């Protein structure tokens, strides 16, 4: 996979599909294969040394991941760098485009929603992709139904991972509205965070697979935390992180509510896994690897 100098030749954009915070995302057609691809561009500042080392490192990491050809990760097909001015270079990452996301997939599910066997299969694949990323010390940080892709064969592929650090300097410059609904308490509290943030998001998405609607729909950070505590209960003073400005006193005392009140359709095993994912303390939250081994996935005959 060579660094292509000209990005305009092989890929023809057909629609803008996202962006704002860090650059623009286009749906494009690969002129050779006829297939759709996703072009994600970011503008980076350059000097005589060329691209910043941090950008080169992140791109190298994404390429290293690509070599594993993991079934639950979108393919990185190409990386193009185009010099725009002396001070600015446009880096374009060319990813495989899957024409369906989990949001659409869930919307299409006829009532009463997805069968449990389908939820198990989707979750197994999601956790498989996630534990692969985590084993390479890559955080997703923004896992949500819109960037979990589902092919027409039902194969799950995670997209938009590992881009946060490439984009980080730009995100600070452009305020955009991003969804808070899948965000973990430690991120909402601006505490230190690591791989458990993705498990929190996975828990929210797991619940959504049963409910066919999001679990916690907050409108601000505090509102999001309030909605979370109304289900999992207000954590104790010892559990509250010490490195945050928002104090525990800002929230009403709440005891944990039965998770089946929020997700009535879930089985006992499913509820146990969900609670282990929606654990406030990131150090006590289940890991992707352990979640894969959970008894929810053991092959017992279920009724659906």
């Amino acid at each position, binding site marked *: 996979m060579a660094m292509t100098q000209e990005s305009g030749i092989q890929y023809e954009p057909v629609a803008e599909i996202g962006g704002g915070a860090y650059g623009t995302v286009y749906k494009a057609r690969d002129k050779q294969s*006829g297939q759709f691809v996703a072009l994600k561009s970011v503008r980076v500042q350059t000097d005589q040394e060329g691209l910043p080392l941090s950008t080169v490192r992140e791109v190298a990491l994404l390429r290293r991941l690509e070599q594993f050809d993991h079934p639950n990760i979108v393919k990185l097909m190409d990386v193009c760098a185009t010099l725009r001015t002396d001070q600015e270079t446009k880096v374009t990452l060319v990813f495989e485009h899957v024409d369906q996301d989990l949001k659409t997939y869930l919307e299409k599910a006829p009532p009463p929603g997805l069968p449990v066997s389908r939820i198990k299969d989707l979750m197994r694949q999601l956790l498989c992709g996630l534990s692969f990323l985590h084993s390479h010390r890559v955080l997703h940080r923004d896992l949500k139904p819109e960037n979990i892709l589902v092919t027409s064969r039902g194969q799950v592929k995670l997209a938009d991972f590992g881009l946060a650090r490439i984009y980080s300097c730009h995100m600070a410059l452009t305020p955009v509205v991003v969804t808070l609904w899948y965000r973990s308490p430690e991120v909402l509290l601006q505490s230190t965070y690591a791989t458990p943030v993705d498990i929190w998001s996975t828990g929210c998405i797991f619940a959504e697979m049963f409910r066919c609607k999001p679990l916690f729909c907050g409108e601000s950070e505090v509102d999001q935390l309030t909605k979370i505590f109304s289900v999992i209960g207000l954590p104790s003073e010892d559990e509250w992180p010490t490195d945050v400005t928002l104090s525990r006193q800002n929230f009403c005392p709440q005891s944990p509510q039965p998770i089946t009140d929020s997700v009535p359709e879930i089985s006992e095993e499913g509820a146990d896994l969900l609670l282990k994912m929606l654990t406030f303390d990131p150090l006590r939250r289940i890991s992707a690897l352990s979640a894969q081994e959970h008894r929810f996935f053991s092959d017992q005959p279920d009724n659906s």
Partner: protein
Amino acid sequence: MHDKDKLATAAANGNVELVESLLLNGADVNGVNRFGRTPIQVMMMGSTPVARVLLAHGADPNVVDAHAGATPLHDAARTGFLDTVKILIQFGANPDVGDNNNYRPVDLAQQNGHQEKTSKVSRVALFRSFAHYPVIPAFIPSYLK
């Protein structure tokens, strides 16, 4: 974002609520975005709800990509979303037209099935059966009645 891109972008993102509201507010279902594509050409192929809304509002299912020669039916077939294939054909998409490589949609569906031999036969058979579906007239959404 450019105003003329809104409907195509909403369709590409599979955002059926936004597609509907833009159409009800007078967006042209066959208007092109700044890349010269109509919403049905760039829609999320797996979103049958978006396909249905666009087609019900009169989207032309036989629009041809200026460079690839592909119709939406080619792309739905290539990506394997058979529900979308079915809706396109029901709304009059021509299954016999070739793209620039002279591939018909069914050829791309077949190529798409190569990786998984087991599903190949049934996929193609299913696709052929859709080609014989009666073409239904575009239904009028209840809110327009």
